[in-house]
């Protein structure tokens, strides 16, 4: 029991209600592995970006439900925790190519957007501090670009959906918004299209063929002679040599 004071850097935590003692500096993920859990679900990148390991917890004597990524959240004494590695939120299939980047298209896919009552439970639970309610609000008024920007750090863990009384699948809706913004609302890169055309017409064929024929020594020489674009210049820099351009 907890009276064992010989190991002073251990703290008690409750994993799905069962008590374990774990080193106080561990993350929830390392603490669970330390107790003998072996993850199948609930563990992914171990670096805070994949959304596999969302955990919900309470602190002793506090009714607030808190959240964090198990791989990023350090344990606290008497933490009551569980993982929520999957949430059955509805994701609508849509044909990206023909979907118009307009509010009406998003509304048609996800009419439940209008079930939002601005309770803010989504934002409060988000482990990435995304302003979920705000991007839902932006979408309700048709501002796809703002929703795309505000949802950018979303890791699609599904915790928002798990807390939503309007039963919105916020993270799926945001994904539609980001793709419509990225591919249809923001202007395409003209320099990219120009480069594709240049490659298509074979502009670099000879220069590349020359490199392919070069032996190692010549490659080394060409490599060492490369003009290096200075770090602190803007887009205006141009190389002196025209070989390869």
């Amino acid at each position, binding site marked *: 029991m907890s009276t064992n004071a010989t190991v002073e850097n251990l703290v008690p935590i409750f994993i799905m209600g069962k008590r374990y003692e774990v080193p106080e*500096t*561990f993350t929830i993920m*390392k603490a669970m*592995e330390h107790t*003998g859990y072996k*993850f199948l*679900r609930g563990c*992914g*990148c*171990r670096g*805070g*970006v994949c959304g*596999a390991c969302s955990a919900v917890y309470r602190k002793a004597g506090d009714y607030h439900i808190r959240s964090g990524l198990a791989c*990023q*959240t*350090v344990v606290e004494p008497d933490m009551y925790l569980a993982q929520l590695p999957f949430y059955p939120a509805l*994701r609508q299939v*849509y044909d990206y190519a023909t979907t118009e980047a307009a509010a009406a298209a998003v509304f048609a896919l996800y009419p439940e957007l209008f079930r939002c009552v601005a309770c803010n439970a989504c934002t409060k639970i988000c482990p990435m*501090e995304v302003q979920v309610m705000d991007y839902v609000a932006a979408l309700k008024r048709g501002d796809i670009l703002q929703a*795309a920007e505000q949802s*950018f*750090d979303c890791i*699609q863990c599904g915790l928002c959906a798990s807390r939503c009384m309007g039963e919105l699948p916020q993270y799926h809706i945001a*994904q*539609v918004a*980001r*793709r419509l*913004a*990225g*591919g249809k609302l*923001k*202007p395409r*890169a*003209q*320099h*990219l299209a120009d*480069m*594709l055309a*240049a*490659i298509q017409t074979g502009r*670099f064929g000879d*220069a*590349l063929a020359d*490199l*392919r024929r070069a032996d190692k020594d010549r*490659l080394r020489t060409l*490599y*060492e002679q*490369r003009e*290096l*674009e*200075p*770090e*602190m210049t803007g*887009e205006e*820099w*141009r190389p002196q040599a025209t*070989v*390869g*351009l």
Partner: protein
Amino acid sequence: MPYPQQLKDLMKQVAATRAQRVAQKQSGWHFPFLSLDQRKEMLNHHPDFREEGRREVRVGPSKGYRVAHEIVDLLEARSRVDPDRLDLARVALETDVLIIGGGGAGTSAALLAQEQGASVVVATKLRHGDANTMMAEGGIQAATKGEKDSPYFHYLDVMGGGHFTNEPELVHTLVTQAPSAIAWLEALGCNFTKSPAGRLATIHGGGTSRKRMHYAADITGAEIMRTIRDEARNRGRDITLLEFSPAVELVLDERGHCVGAVLYNLETEEYFLVRAKAVILATGVCGRLHIQGFMTTNHYGATADGVVLGYRAGVPICFLHTVQYHPTGIVFPEQAEGILITEKFRGSGANLCNVDGEQFVNEREPRDVEAAAIIRECSVKGKGVPTPSGKAGIWLDSPMIELLAGEGTVKREFPGKYILLKRFGIDISQEPMLIFPTLHYQNGGLEYTSECTTKVPGLYVAGEVGGGVHGANRLMGNSLLDIIVFGRIAGENAGAYAKQAARPGALTLDHVRRYHQELASAGVGAERIAPMLLPDYTPPDVRGRQLTAQYQGTLR
């Protein structure tokens, strides 16, 4: 954990030289790059050059090749399934193209195979998108700015970074297909950072001669992955996703053509067969093998399964003796140990400094050189910064970025890392980060062609599981590029092959029997099985109490 007082005191040395270093950078001065000969010398400090870290593999198509013990252990191991017990007549699922791996390469391949009219099954060990693609932060290289850059310079940079050992044909394909890979992603709605007029933002990466690294804030890989995953989900009628279902063995026909795989349902612990006309291996990488004990940036499932599967089926391996250690992994706080700090920090101007606050290497050397320089500074030179747990690290001076590019830049450009370290009480816009090299990338792998074919007909390779394009060292921003370019090629070619040329025969696992015989003859591997599927982080004392004498299932 915030920095303890001892580190806060040491940090003052970095702050003391910061103003001068910022001024130097603004004036255009940079710490001298090493010459090619000096690089070679420096690389002696790289873990790849520790002979005691590797041994010869004694079986299989690349018998005699010396690679890391941890990889040899997997190659010299028996199958998870007994070929005699598996009923090959019971096929659970049939498809045109089976893709093993649900990361960036596998998903790109799925989309392109589907566009050939093929039915596609993607089998992945964890969730769709649980892959290193998701974790790639810095960016994706492509020569898209014709006024100063072209595939010619990209080619030279790739070859130089790989120490001129790369497969030229693969490099040629990589650099000439790069712009169309970016255009494809842009058209699918990927939010690359760009100007209001649509001009893509590009920066330098280690070893680049031109600023050609495109990015989406500091979550480039995640943005790419979630975009193409969303598209694959939209095409769910033709693309079936099998999550938590890793492949444990390839299935060949009597002519040796690849015609499917044995998959394993991790949750129900059942093995089942998928028959396919073509198979694409897109399984990624080996970081969770913790080669030479290094910490890793890789995701939980990075256990080199595809190398094991392909090797047993007869595909040789190449460049696997080189492993990339990312120069900058977090070494403090310990909870975040191994987590990658993107090279974009250095691309944006942050210096590396030793315990005395001195620069000792240009921050934009190729990764292997950079990592070797950090290891040397901490070991041979003894100028590392001591951490509370007795390790050593080097300062990455992120506050410089605020001084160079304006207040708020760190938070805006690196939101992921800013939030992560803020949770630990460290404000990286004000305090430098403590870093050390971390196991990051498998430079080598299965041999494949620029058409993504292998020695085994019907078996295709895409992404990090393959070797050759990066030679002995990959440059930053070329891995995301690799998976998109070769993922698409593999999907297109496998899809077309499945629809036209494939004439699959009867299923056999004879190659597994032969491999087992070879192991027995060499007298190795009887005690090991592979693929590993998942690493095991159970502490030894807990393991010692796990006394179950006999399991019904096969996972454990």
